[in-house]
């Protein structure tokens, strides 16, 4: 069965996950993003591609950075942006998710940017819109549960390509709380699709989901061994709010073994870049000297994230 994110012509109708996207489609998004990067430098920081369209930000889970960058991206494309405060909305009064969507569609929404604590919620919405014949309305997954965060994955690829050019010679390490990380899943799918020959995952056993090897990655529990000769280090946030039970002895213990410090960074290639999706827990997964150091590209990721989200929205809106 066709994934509901693709239309009958095989074009991207919604962006739900990077899993299964052809390499050419990912590269087209990155190339399109490149042309949006300099929009921020213009006297008029806007292009009219989404003029007259309404983009609804539906964040059922808190986020500052992602919601703000989506909002900036939509506004730079000249869309009208409506931010729904879900905590005070009808959902809190018991309205179902799909009823909320139907009501907003009746207000002539053109695009929903959805973050939800349940894996699969954006998929459900996209499938529902296709089923009720509202396939002109687009859904962008801004992070669902532990499943996927495709625009973060794409902006990570953009950042890696910006610094490393060629994906096919790289060693990339993803470090930390892989178990709870939708960013890790999206990055792994994107990296393997783009032909990265060696993707490593570094974490304690309790934070590694089962079946990692089937995704084409090498698993390390020893951070020093895992960082040897890598070109790219993607640090993940230790997701305290998702921790139930005793997966870790303590944050201090975690930092000792899996925190990125200058001496551990020295094991990677000298030109390795350090990435982090934010927000950072300084002193838990990353040391401040590394986070603020010359090899960190963490703030660039945020800037590139706007261009990548502009690219995704403008490609979807035309399909």
């Amino acid at each position, binding site marked *: 069965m066709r994934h509901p994110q693709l239309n009958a012509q095989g074009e991207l109708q919604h962006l739900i996950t990077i899993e299964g996207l052809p390499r050419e489609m990912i590269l*087209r998004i990155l*190339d*399109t993003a*490149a*042309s949006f*990067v*300099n*929009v921020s430098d*213009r*006297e*008029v920081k*806007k*292009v*009219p*591609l989404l003029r007259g369209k309404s983009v609804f930000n539906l964040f059922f889970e808190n986020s500052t950075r992602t919601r703000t960058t989506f909002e900036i991206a939509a506004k730079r494309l000249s869309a009208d942006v409506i931010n729904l405060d879900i905590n005070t909305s009808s959902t809190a009064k018991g309205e179902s998710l799909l009823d909320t969507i139907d009501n907003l569609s009746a207000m002539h929404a053109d695009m929903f940017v959805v973050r939800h604590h349940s894996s699969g919620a954006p998929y459900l919405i996209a499938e529902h819109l296709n089923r009720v014949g509202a396939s002109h309305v687009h859904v962008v997954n801004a992070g669902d549960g532990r499943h996927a965060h495709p625009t973060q994955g794409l902006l990570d690829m953009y950042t890696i390509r910006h610094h490393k050019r060629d994906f096919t010679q790289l060693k990339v390490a993803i470090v930390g709380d892989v178990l709870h990380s939708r960013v890790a899943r999206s990055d792994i799918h994107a990296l393997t699709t783009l032909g990265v020959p060696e993707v490593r995952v570094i974490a304690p056993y309790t934070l590694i989901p089962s079946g990692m090897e089937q995704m084409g990655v090498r698993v390390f529990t020893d951070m020093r061994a895992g960082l040897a000769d890598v070109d790219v280090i993607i640090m993940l946030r230790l997701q305290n709010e998702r921790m139930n039970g005793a997966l870790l002895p303590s944050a201090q213990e975690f930092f000792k073994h899996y925190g990125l410090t200058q001496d551990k960074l020295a094991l990677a290639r000298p030109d390795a870049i350090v990435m982090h999706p934010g927000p950072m827990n300084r002193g838990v997964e990353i040391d401040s000297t590394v986070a603020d150091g010359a090899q960190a590209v963490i703030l660039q990721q945020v800037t590139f994230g706007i261009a990548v989200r502009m690219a995704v929205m*403008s*490609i979807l809106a*035309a*399909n």
Partner: protein
Amino acid sequence: MNTPTPDVESVYAALRDAIASALAAEPERRPHLIGIHSGGAWVAQRLHADLALPTPLGTLSSAFHRDDYGRRGLPAEMKSTELPFEIKGADIVLVDDILFTGRTVRAALNELFDYGRPARVELAVLLDRGGRELPIEARYVGAAHPLARERAFALSRTPDGRFSLSIE
């Protein structure tokens, strides 16, 4: 209508000479050439070298302002606008390969004005094929060559930098 394909090298030479004589008549001008992707950028690049202009060359993409975005979307291969000079107050010659409906030039002007307010903008085109849908005309034209609506000129570049033209 079986139109013969014009000799694009002599058309190019005519365009180059038209601009050269206009600039010779106003020697105080310091115009910037800006080529519209893709064909216009090639023409502008060659003009820039042949006319030995001291000002930097720019390239411009009309994709963000096209009025057919809703039907055609963004091009599969996006080119970036690169304007390595101040647009505000600049004297600009916008260059394209083929002038047809005028919609590309309209979109290009919108793109240009996102960077500032130029002092003046002229238009130079290799071929004017007629069929205008907007009140836009070029000051410098290599040749006027009417073509039926359903046909299209396709400009390409040979490895030695010369142009070749076909009708599709």
